[in-house]
């Protein structure tokens, strides 16, 4: 039981990170109708920028960890958002009215560009950092000595995710930009006729998605203590699985899907085998698409002739 509770905590933390990435997939799919294949690599870039900023701040002699983390968060969100904007501008916007495979292939190309760009720029070796946030709480200690730990970093990951989700939900449901985004999702032509700047709205979607991916990158860095140039690929597919599981196009669904994937992966590793945890995640993607193509919270897609 204690073991189960510990895995539950771990799974929820991992799921929060997946959920943050999944929101980027689901937003872009909802509005542009394409899988932003490079989004996993945007997450990786976010992690790298967080690492570099962190290193720079440490070397300036700053010691207040909360201040450092806040600056790292803002810098990494800003620069990664610019990456998202640039990617959309270069690789996707010229193809918006092309045939349906074109943006997908362009996105795969972009994913290669980002992976190999960071390999060339930062080297192929794994970049570890020493643990930044240490300590935690012991929730429960059982008779046989097994301890349920809730570390501070886990609390921070979950709280950051909840805060960001609250801001994001407010943004989508209450602001002008959110209304534009929902309008573009339903009908781009009509939205344009009613004075919505479709290009700008789509750009903003990529910017927000990339900023959230950057937060996920920072959380990953703090939680696992390392980044490498190849981490975007698998994390990207899993986050996409999360988006599909939750119902692509649905924002709460993305978060829910992220949590589900995080839990499944953690429990699979804990009770079955660590080697096959990715196989489990990918199999779930296939199973979900077969039996529940619209996901948990998605709307059924109407087939247009």
């Amino acid at each position, binding site marked *: 039981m204690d073991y189960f509770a510990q895995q539950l905590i771990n799974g929820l933390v991992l799921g929060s990170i997946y959920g943050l990435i999944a929101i980027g997939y689901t937003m872009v799919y909802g509005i542009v109708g394409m899988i932003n294949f490079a989004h996993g690599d945007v997450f990786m870039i976010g992690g790298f920028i967080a690492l570099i900023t962190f290193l720079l701040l440490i070397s300036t002699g700053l010691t207040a960890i909360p201040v450092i983390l806040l600056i790292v968060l803002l810098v990494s969100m800003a620069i990664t958002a610019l990456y998202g904007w640039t990617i959309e*501008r270069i690789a996707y916007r010229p193809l918006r009215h092309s045939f349906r495979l074109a943006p997908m292939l362009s996105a795969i190309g972009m994913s*290669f560009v980002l*992976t190999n760009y960071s390999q060339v720029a930062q080297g192929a070796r794994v970049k570890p950092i020493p643990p930044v946030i240490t300590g935690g709480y012991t929730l429960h200690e059982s008779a046989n000595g097994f301890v349920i730990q809730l570390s501070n970093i886990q609390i921070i990951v979950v709280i950051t995710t909840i805060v960001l989700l609250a801001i994001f939900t407010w943004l989508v449901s209450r602001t002008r930009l959110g209304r534009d985004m929902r309008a573009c999702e339903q009908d781009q032509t009509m939205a344009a006729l009613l004075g919505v700047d479709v290009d700008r709205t789509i750009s903003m979607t990529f910017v927000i998605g990339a900023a959230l991916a950057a937060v996920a990158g920072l959380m990953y860095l703090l939680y696992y203590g390392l980044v490498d140039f190849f981490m975007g690929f698998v994390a990207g597919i899993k986050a996409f699985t999360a988006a599909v599981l939750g119902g692509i196009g649905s924002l709460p669904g993305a978060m829910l899907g992220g949590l589900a994937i995080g839990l499944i992966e953690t429990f699979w590793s804990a009770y079955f085998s660590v080697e096959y945890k990715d196989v489990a995640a990918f199999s779930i993607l296939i199973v979900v698409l077969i039996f529940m193509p619209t996901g948990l919270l998605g709307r059924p897609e109407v087939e247009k002739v």
Partner: protein
Amino acid sequence: MTVISPETASASRTAGIPALLKTAFVNALIALVLFSLMVGIRTEAGSDGQLTYWTRFGDVAALVAAVFGGSIVIELLRQWIGSSGAEKLIPPAVQSSMSLVGRYLAPALLIFTVLVPVIFYQQRYILDLAILVLTYVMLGWGLNVVVGLAGLLDLGYVAFYAVGAYSYALLATNFGWSFWVCLPLAGILAAFWGVLLGFPVLRLRGDYLAIVTLAFGEIIRLVIINWQELTGGPNGVSGIPRPSFFGIPLDNSDNGLAAWLHIEYSTTHRIVFLFYLILALALLTNWVTIRLRRLPIGRAWEALREDEVACRALGINTTTTKLTAFATGAMFGGFAGAFFATRQGFISPESFTFQESALVLAIVVLGGMGSQLGVALAALAMIGGFELFRSLETYRMLVFGIAMVLIMIWRPRGLIGHRAPTVYLTKAQAISSDLVKEGHG
């Protein structure tokens, strides 16, 4: 990274030098922010696990300058060439000579390919490269059945290549079966996996299908890595037997082919044999595809690619149509895999990554989705290009990615040609299907 936003051009097409400079300046500024940390600061883990860093501001300055200069050059080129519409006006004389070239290009290429071992008999490197190109031509033609003809985007094609390679490798090393027995078995096993994958994904379309096939490819790779008792895990399978000339080994022994023909033995014999073997396999793929295209099933594939709903309305069984496309494509992938295993003599999961799938897909798309000649030329260009950049090891995939994006922007329908359906109504549709989709029809 000297990719410059092509979008800014339309606004400043008629504008003068100040606007041009302003655009270039903005682009350079964006590049400065993008590259400042990622390129400007290089991190590396030291021997004690401590991260160190050093600055590379010179590289950032060079990249930003390149973006600034590149923006200006692209803008000027754009203004000089004029609108993209003007590019498409090709004089009729050029067009007719192009079609003449097109008619004789395929036979000429085929004759040249057959003669390659004769011409380059002494250059082992060129022969090896030619075998590699032909392997990818075959993979491209195989995937072309799925993507080009049936219009099903398959991002996990390498899985079937892996199934074929491991089928031969394991059957040959464990049971000592000969290449010629294993080749059809590898094809059948791969086709079986193709059907197995095809069943669940029948209802999926477009992007969903792409992601599921990608996941399938990854699952196969992960299983190969982790099922160590069977596949040897990351260490792969080594000591895979070389193929024989229909039972006669190609070695230096008394009953080898050289002794049998009373000629002096040379290692090049095996290379030449492998070359003709893959050429035959590739031509078989091509021939089968061309024949299938004229059968009802081929027509159904093309119809499926054009419009699935119309297909169903006309009573075409989309289930069997999709499954046969998957199975046929997978079978050729399996053949190519068996050939790959026997050529290398050693296989490991590293040869079957997603990058391979993307490379083969890029070949098909570049070749123009369904055009057989186009795919062959694209494979030649891609693998040849890869060889040219071999010295720039780490930059190779970066260049590949940039090329993929640029080609999609410049020619989304493929560099060489787009194959229209074999049969279509002679009268053009009054309203294009895109307009019908939007409710104009």
